[in-house]
């Protein structure tokens, strides 16, 4: 492998190229408005990003296994609502928390089983989910927000501050990234996920239970969406019925920007982590430089297209360089 191929290989490591874009974007906003890197603003960024990034990790895992979940925004909104309601009946907050995560897993299980058993595209199943779970949240609350005052210990474990710029939600975010990274790279389940997402038929002939793989990833997506929603409500001390509106596309955007294939079979959770920070920096930066907030979606849209084109291009280059050394 020559130097050129070596350099390409590093840049092809999608995480690296996204990280460079992330640094460039940060510097760009900082040069326009130094307040962008002020203590208050960085604090806001590091607190908000994980609660939106954790659901994106579940979406990434599911996309690697070859499916989509566009209902996560609704589950993100429903989870804290459910938890608040369960607490109102007198149940201990920790138990309510676990029960809520259980409900979310069950939602994912339902999405998964319906998708693999009926054979309809997951886009449709979870489009149904998007409407149903938002509908449930609105119906049970009559569209009104709920207070979400949690006990001190619960707050400190979920969103507590450990040190300047270091919050528990960031720890959760990193821990989940680490676990998923190990699963993808070092565990057989990661192999099965990629095989299922890439060529389900072949995976099946190799004896892999592709339905089990997919359903598990559906459960992860809903579970983490719910967890993210609870983190956000705990931080804001409110559960809003429209919380997480549009999150599904932000999560898919962060995933794709991070280098995960839209066609399944390949992806990286580290890329999603960086992709999520990049999305938040763009969103927050546009606000800081006083661009109308409507520009966010426009800008993210452009970034997605550029990121995907860059990925496809780099992958082709590297495939060519690599195949040369195969004798």
């Amino acid at each position: 492998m020559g130097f050129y191929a070596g350099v390409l290989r590093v840049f092809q490591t999608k995480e690296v190229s996204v990280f460079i874009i992330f640094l460039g974007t940060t510097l760009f906003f900082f040069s326009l408005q130094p307040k962008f890197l002020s203590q208050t603003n960085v604090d806001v960024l590091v607190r908000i990003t994980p609660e939106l990034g954790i659901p994106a990790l579940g979406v990434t895992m599911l996309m690697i296994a070859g499916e989509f979940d566009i209902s996560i925004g609704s589950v993100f909104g429903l989870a804290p609502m459910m938890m608040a309601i369960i607490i109102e009946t007198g149940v201990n907050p920790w138990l309510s928390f676990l029960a809520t995560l259980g409900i979310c897993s069950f939602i994912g299980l339902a999405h998964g089983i319906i998708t693999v058993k009926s054979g309809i595209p997951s886009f449709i199943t979870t489009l149904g989910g998007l409407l149903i779970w938002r509908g449930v949240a609105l119906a049970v609350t009559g569209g009104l927000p709920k207070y979400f005052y949690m006990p001190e210990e619960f707050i400190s474990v979920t969103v507590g501050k450990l040190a300047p710029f270091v919050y528990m939600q960031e720890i959760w975010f990193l821990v989940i990234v680490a676990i998923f990274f190990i699963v993808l790279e070092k565990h057989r389940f990661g192999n099965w996920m990629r095989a299922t997402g890439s060529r389900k038929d072949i995976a099946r002939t190799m004896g892999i239970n592709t339905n089990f793989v997919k359903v598990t990833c559906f459960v992860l997506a809903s579970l983490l969406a719910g967890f993210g929603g609870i983190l956000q409500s705990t931080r804001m001390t409110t559960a809003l019925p429209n919380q997480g509106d549009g999150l599904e596309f932000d999560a898919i955007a962060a995933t794709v920007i991070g280098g995960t294939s839209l066609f399944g079979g390949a992806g990286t959770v580290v890329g999603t982590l960086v992709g999520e920070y990049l999305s938040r920096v763009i969103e927050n930066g546009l606000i800081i430089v006083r661009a109308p907030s409507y520009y966010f979606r426009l800008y993210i849209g452009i970034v997605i297209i550029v990121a995907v084109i860059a990925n496809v291009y780099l992958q082709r280059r590297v495939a060519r360089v690599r195949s040369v050394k195969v004798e």
Partner: protein
Amino acid sequence: MNKPTPLVEMVNIHKWFGKVYALRGVDFKVYPAEVVGLVGDNGAGKSTLIKILSGVYPPDRGEILFEGKSAGIYSPKVAMRLGIETMHQDQTLIPSLTIARNMFLGRELGGRLLDMKKMNSDSLKAMRELGLIIADPEVAVEALSGGERQGVALSRALYFKTKLIILDEPTNNLSVKETAKVLDIIRNLRETGVTSIFITHNIHHVYPISDRIVILSHGRKICEFKKEKTSIEEITECIISDRSMYRE
């Protein structure tokens, strides 16, 4: 001659797909360490027969014996456990996974975590045994040529001590040179004692390396030849005339 127990014996296999009568009572035997050519036109029932043998479809009637015993091959997993592995044209490897990860897909090495080191070195060893030289087991399969992919899949079969390899059109879409390479690999494989069924519609590919040739047509077995008792002309005639012929 006293024949040994067949490795596989399919007896009176019938299969319907709705109104389509795909297999009409086929008997099919494979003896240990032989290469059987399964030849027929599109729609002759080759693939259906093989899918039944590999557990993809159940037969509607008939029985499968493996090593003389009735084998309930109701899923691909059971077939794999018995040591039957099917290799469809370009359908055996996951393009986005590396060679080593493909080799061990579904049968990964290691305890809780994967033993990538051993998986990498073992894949290299298995490929070398069949004369396939690839430097890096961490190359994604999509970067390999068609012949190399076949080679990787066959190395996998060798590594897992597969008893019966079903090759579904292994030389389709390959260049002349690549075809020769794949045929070479199959020959090497036979020397290691692996039994194989070679499905093709090109008798010129299967004739040089097979011991026996079976021809299907419209869901029936019409001809069966021991290679030493026939010629390529006779086989061609059988296919063209669609007339039953047995030389055993």
